[in-house]
């Protein structure tokens, strides 16, 4: 033994204790590369390892523990190392494969392909075009042909790509915490299905998220036909079941109330974030933005926002009424009465203001709309519909769509009851993570243990999987076939962009086992369903294959939209609960990580929350007045107690937040998320009650501790610099050039340096502040497009976040109901760029097309350019921020953009890679780039199309026209930097009748 290269003593020791199963599972699950060898060394004596090795290298396992000699040991070592490395790559299939001799059509290495698919959010489809580089999805864009996308996306679709490559995704089937394989599961589950069949499905419970997938609904329906006693439960912490139940009461069947804002003159939002949340949010945003146009003399839409905490949509409101969330039902009734709806009496609040609003609504009958909040109870939804009906808005600005969600599903509360009463024997969880997302009052973690068999399909081995008997890795939506519907019923066949990275399975495949077809792939299930529906759904009557291909190509199934149904206002019942009398605790999904689905997503964690600009934590948002009363400052720990349950979180003083109300956000305080999302923030579910899930009566208390928060914008007032220039509609009509009236821009020839000669393109940008909601989709889109690194909470707190575009938030006016402004700030690409002159090595230079270019290779990192940049848009790699080590993250990178290294400066490039790509293409076609052919990432994603990019040398381009508008101004234009990025001033349309009404008007 002495001459051996490796000490074998540990291997040969006979008296080693039996290995801890959990520990081995963790080691093996984590094991790649060298970890295998360590496991081998440490665990050679264990039964599990022998089994495992037998599986991997049949016949070898016998050789390991006994009578090992150095030679064979090294052989095993070498093989296991090599295989461990190889396991990370996709294996070559057994079947005959054909080498890549002739290039297939459309595949040009280096040029991406785009595929249409859809991402279900809350069950509803967002049509997407996914950019694929050699079969590797890197970036999603909205599908312009899809009614729920119109070419834009929200932050969630953008960030979903990173979820695909998340290194902490579950990679293997696990049975009671041990490694298993799919065939073991199908075997076990098939026999379970047989015994279920004998019981006619007695005791089978299936829990899924909300869905509109026709194939899944069909599978479930067939399953319930087969086994009528099986029950289907639906749960999503981000979806309020009251929306569906109210619609059902209104329409008498499953339905969805949607809005057509293209004709709206007055919008009243009862705590609705209609521009950002919900199945039709992007359509709403597009229509709302169009109705805020003012440049051709139109009268823009007026938005009243009545809300507890400011929402994204509320930041654009012309009038803002901060009230407790629990007071909104009462206000809705009050408003209903003022609009002529028979409503029970309620205590009046802010009567003068509300009467003014009602007056405005009554003046615009048929052209107004009242939108109930996504997290408000049924009463508000019914009241809002009643008001709309009374105002004659239904059929004009309000549409009741045929419902596309399944009808007879049950809730999580019912599931808990059924579990506790022993009615559930087999629980199949298709996606949701109820052990984490269930309200604490349900005690779901205790209830789930009562089921005999729990099967969990999930992307992570998370809280729920830990309490399940089987854990099956779930395929990401970019990995599997499925289908889903938009709010209007339009179907998208979701096609996968990539083979499942970790053999993930879809809900279709699990259900197929129960339906007796354990080997049916998702593709066959989905295609089979549509084939069976072929004639009925597809009016063209053409052959199925053509329709199938067409649908895949377009991303929508032609003619699949559903119609509207007739609704009828329901008589408003007296409110069961009034407003919470003391302090109210409002529960909401986190603005960026939702209910925790994105908690392991670094992009989302580092995306500043739209209201607070805070990252990496959830806070307890509190009004400035309450904070002053309690002597609380930002970061002071607050103990929030609801019904005896307590969490502790840092305070955030949020201007515009309602008094005596605090908002807590879901998604944090997780244990089963991953390396990014674990153990940050507090878990708001732990104090949630299922009876009143979105607001509850509670108390807050200072603990005396302080917590360090990482926010990207310390100062949120304008300090007299007027970065956002504002006028009311009347002022704008009188002074259309209000942004530059006081200080006209400097003459163009006033500089020491000669002006740049431009002979070709002159790239420029215009950002319309009037329609920017601050939703931050641009930040995530830019991050995905430009390989922007995530730096972590500590670095953000030190002022080193890397976003190339940021959205500045400014408050003006009084603290309790301030005006809020959002200002996206990318690089200004100044004509007289202060950064260019001070770089000693010419690493930042002016291009012939007016771009201010950053040459990473040349940068030595003096940071003088950043010091001299008045806009502070430059970002510096203080450390090696880009993750060069995690292999799974290689996939998400855009190959057209350099991954930056330590010590170099970086900044917005106007997506120069996109410019170059289109220039190359148009040069081949011997023509100029046409307007709109190049979209920057931020522009493309923007739900309200607030960002316009184009060529200034073309007088007919959209950006040229916008930059000639009178309300255009350059940020800090008194510095003579002559920015190419220009802003369009903000115009507010206040109701003159409300002038001086309480402190709530924002004029």
């Amino acid at each position: 033994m002495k001459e051996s290269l490796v000490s074998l003593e540990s291997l040969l020791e006979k008296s080693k204790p039996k290995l801890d199963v959990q520990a081995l599972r963790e080691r093996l699950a984590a094991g790649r590369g060298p970890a295998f060898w360590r496991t081998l060394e440490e665990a050679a004596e264990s039964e599990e390892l022998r089994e495992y090795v037998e599986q991997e290298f049949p016949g070898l396992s016998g050789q390991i523990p006994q009578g090992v000699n150095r030679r064979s040991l090294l052989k095993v070592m070498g093989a296991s190392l090599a295989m461990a490395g190889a396991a990370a790559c996709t294996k070559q299939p057994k079947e005959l494969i054909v080498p890549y001799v002739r290039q297939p059509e459309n595949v040009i290495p280096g040029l991406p392909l785009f595929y249409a698919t859809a991402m279900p959010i809350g069950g509803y489809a967002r049509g997407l075009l996914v950019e694929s580089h050699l079969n590797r999805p890197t970036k999603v864009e909205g599908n312009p042909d899809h009614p729920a996308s119109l070419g834009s996306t929200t932050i969630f679709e953008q960030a979903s790509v990173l979820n695909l490559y998340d290194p902490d995704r579950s990679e293997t089937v696990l049975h009671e915490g041990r490694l298993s394989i799919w065939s073991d599961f199908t075997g076990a589950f098939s026999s379970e299905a047989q015994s279920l069949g004998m019981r006619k499905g007695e005791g089978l419970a299936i829990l899924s998220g909300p869905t509109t997938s026709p194939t899944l609904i069909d599978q479930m329906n067939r399953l319930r036909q087969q086994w009528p006693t099986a029950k289907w439960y639906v749960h999503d912490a981000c979806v309020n079941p009251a929306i569906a139940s109210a619609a059902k009461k209104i329409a008498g069947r499953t339905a969805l109330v949607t809005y057509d804002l293209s004709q709206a003159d007055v919008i009243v939002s009862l705590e609705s974030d209609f521009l950002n949340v919900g199945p039709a949010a992007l359509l709403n945003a597009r229509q709302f933005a169009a109705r805020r146009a003012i440049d051709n003399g139109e009268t823009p839409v007026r938005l009243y926002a009545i809300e507890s905490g400011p929402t994204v949509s509320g930041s654009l409101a012309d009038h803002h009424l901060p009230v407790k969330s629990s007071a909104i039902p009462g206000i809705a009734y009050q408003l209903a009465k003022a609009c002529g709806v028979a409503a029970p009496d309620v205590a009046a609040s802010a009567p003068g203001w509300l009467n003014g609003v009602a007056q405005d609504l009554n003046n615009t009958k048929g052209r107004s709309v009242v939108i109930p909040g996504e997290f408000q109870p049924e009463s508000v939804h019914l009241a809002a519909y009643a008001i709309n009906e009374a105002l004659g808005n239904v059929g004009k600005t309000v549409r009741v769509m045929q419902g596309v969600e399944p009808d007879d599903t049950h809730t999580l509360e019912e599931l808990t009851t059924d579990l506790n009463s022993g009615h559930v024997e087999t629980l199949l969880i298709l996606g949701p993570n109820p052990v984490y997302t269930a309200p604490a009052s349900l005690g779901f973690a205790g209830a789930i243990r009562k089921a005999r068999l729990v099967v969990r399909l999930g992307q992570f081995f998370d809280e729920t999987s830990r309490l399940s008997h089987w854990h099956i890795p779930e395929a990401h939506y970019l990995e599997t076939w499925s289908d889903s519907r938009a709010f209007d019923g339009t179907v998208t066949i979701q096609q996968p962009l990539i083979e499942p990275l970790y053999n993930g399975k879809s809900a279709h495949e699990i259900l197929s086992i129960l339906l007796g077809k354990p080997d049916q792939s998702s593709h066959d299930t989905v295609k089979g369903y549509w084939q069976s529906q072929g004639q009925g759904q597809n009016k063209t009557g053409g052959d199925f294959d053509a329709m199938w291909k067409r649908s895949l190509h377009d991303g929508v199934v032609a003619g699949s939209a559903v119609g509207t149904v007739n609704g009828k206002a329901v008589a408003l019942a007296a409110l069961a609960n009034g407003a919470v009398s003391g302090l109210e605790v409002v529960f909401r999904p986190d603005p960026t990580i939702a209910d925790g689905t994105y908690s392991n997503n670094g992009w989302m964690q580092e995306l500043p929350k739209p209201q607070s600009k805070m990252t990496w934590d959830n806070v307890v948002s509190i009004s400035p007045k309450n904070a002053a009363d309690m002597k609380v400052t930002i970061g002071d720990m607050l103990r929030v107690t609801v019904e005896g349950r307590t969490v502790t979180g840092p305070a955030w003083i949020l201007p515009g937040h309602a008094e005596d109300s605090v908002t807590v956000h879901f998604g944090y305080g997780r244990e089963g998320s991953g390396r990014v999302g674990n153990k940050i923030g507090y878990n708001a579910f732990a104090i949630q009650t299922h009876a009143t899930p979105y607001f509850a009566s509670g108390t807050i208390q200072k603990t005396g501790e302080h917590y360090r928060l990482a926010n990207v914008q310390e100062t949120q007032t304008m300090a007299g610099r007027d970065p956002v220039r504002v006028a009311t509609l009347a002022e704008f009509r009188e002074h259309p050039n209000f942004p530059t009236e006081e200080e006209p821009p400097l003459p163009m020839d006033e500089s020491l340096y000669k002006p740049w000669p431009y002979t070709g393109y002159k790239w420029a940008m215009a950002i319309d502040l009037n329609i920017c909601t601050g939703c931050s989709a641009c930040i995530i889109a830019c991050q995905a497009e430009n390989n922007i690194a995530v730096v972590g909470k500590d670095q953000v707190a030190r002022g080193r976040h890397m976003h190339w575009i940021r959205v500045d938030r400014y408050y003006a006016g009084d603290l309790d109901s301030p005006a809020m402004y959002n200002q996206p700030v990318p690089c200004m690409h100044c004509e007289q760029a202060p950064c260019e002159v001070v770089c000693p090595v010419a690493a930042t230079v002016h291009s012939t097309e007016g771009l201010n270019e950053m040459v990473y290779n040349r940068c030595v990192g003096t940071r003088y350019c950043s010091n001299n940049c008045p806009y502070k848009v430059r970002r510096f790699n203080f450390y090696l921020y880009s993750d060069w080590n995690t292999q799974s993250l290689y996939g998400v990178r855009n190959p057209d953009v350099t991954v930056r290294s330590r010590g170099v400066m970086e900044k917005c490039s106007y997506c120069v890679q996109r410019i170059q790509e289109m220039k190359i293409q148009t040069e081949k076609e011997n023509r100029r780039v046409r307007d709109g052919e190049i979209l920057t990432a931020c522009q493309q994603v923007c739900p309200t199309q607030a960002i316009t990019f184009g060529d200034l040398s073309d007088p007919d381009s959209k950006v040229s026209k916008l930059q000639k508008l009178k309300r255009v101004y350059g940020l800090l234009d008194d510095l003579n930097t002559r920015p190419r990025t220009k802003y369009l001033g903000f115009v507010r349309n206040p109701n003159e009748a409300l002038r001086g009404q309480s402190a709530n008007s924002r004029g």
Partner: protein
Amino acid sequence: MQTPEVEEREPKELIPDPGPSSILGPGHTYNSVTQRIAGVVFLPWKRTPKKWMVGAFIAFCFVNLLMLAMGYLFLRGIGIWGVNIPIGWGFAIINFVWWIGIGHAGTLISAVFFLLKQDWRTSINRFSEAMTLFAVACAGMFPILHLGRPWLAYWLFPYPNSMWLWPQPRSPLEWDVFAVSTYGTVSLVFWYVGLIPDLASLRDSANKLWIQRFYGILSLGWRGSAIHWHRYQKAYLLLAGLSTPLVLSVHTIVSFDFAISILPGWHTTIFPPYFVAGAIYSGFAMVLTLIIPLRAWYNLRDLITLRHIEAAAKVMLGTGLIVAYGYSMEAFFSWYSGDKYESFMYWNRMTGPYGFTYALLILCNIALPQALWSRRVRHNIVLVWILSIIINIGMWLERFVIVVTSLHRDFLPSSWGIYIPTKWDWATYAGTLGFFMFLIFLFVRWLPSISIFEVREVVHHEEVSMEPAVEGKI
């Protein structure tokens, strides 16, 4: 060779200071001057002052701290410092400007005062030139350390390369490269040329062969012939003439690093003169900080007299007043300009989160040094020494205030930030202080820290004028 004299080289009793009117103690001859100064160098190791040993050891510890800080910096990146966006420059640039400023006194004393025939400079010029050189060495480190990619620092030099890439000549950082490297080179040459006759004297009085050879090689064959002296004085005069403009130009260009930018608080035309004055101010403070303990430890009170100390104190008072004028004009113009950014900047500088640094700066640089108007204070060596340290701190604070308070709240409130130096910032700064002190310790041990031949010239002049050296002592 001259072993018996070794004992005599070092006087046993405390030698009194001849007082503020004399630049040399009474009774000195050519020989005594040589022996006293060379005696410090030839002191046997065993009799090296304990204070030297302790001081050099402490300084050496800090040199190691510097190595550690630099090693970790190269390993991890400048993220270990407190810099961020918007405060892209922090301690590195503050320390760079501070060290460069300190160097200025040496050049002023040795070149400008030489041209102005200020004979009191003779006993302190060598030392202050060395100080200049070491300060420039410390300063020169920072611009390289502060780079994001320090291994590419050579890209700042215009060297021919296959890509035909040259530095960008409009950047003041590029001017800095030339200013500082010129300054370093000229200072080195000037200092070395000044050393040559003394190296020859050391060679001649060395008592061991290897020491003789060592100094012999360094003295470049100096024989002290009339032709040598004739050429030497021409060369020295020329070098003095060459160095003189550097006193003005180097810190002017350093100030351009700030003045050329568009940042409120940096973009100021007053910066060049006020930086130069500040540099001389801090330089003389450093000279006093170092020379007062030196003359005590090595018993050189008759060579570095109250006259020198008082003259340096007067220069500090004068330059300090120029600096005070600079501050007041900065404040005045930020108000008078009516520019919202400028006026906010100054208000924020005085009352913002870093207001305490501004208050300390005014206290250290303007308020306390006014005590130097009093002759009694100027003649109180301990008080002058304490004041010199206070001024050093004040001048460091001045750079801190300029760099940090201007950057941390500039144009757009959304990007305002805060700068908190980390332990590595402090370690690097303390490390360069140690490095500087270590070099000074080595210098006084191995080279004549006072110019022998120039003091002998003074002896010659005094013999001619027969001026009696009188008056008190400290």
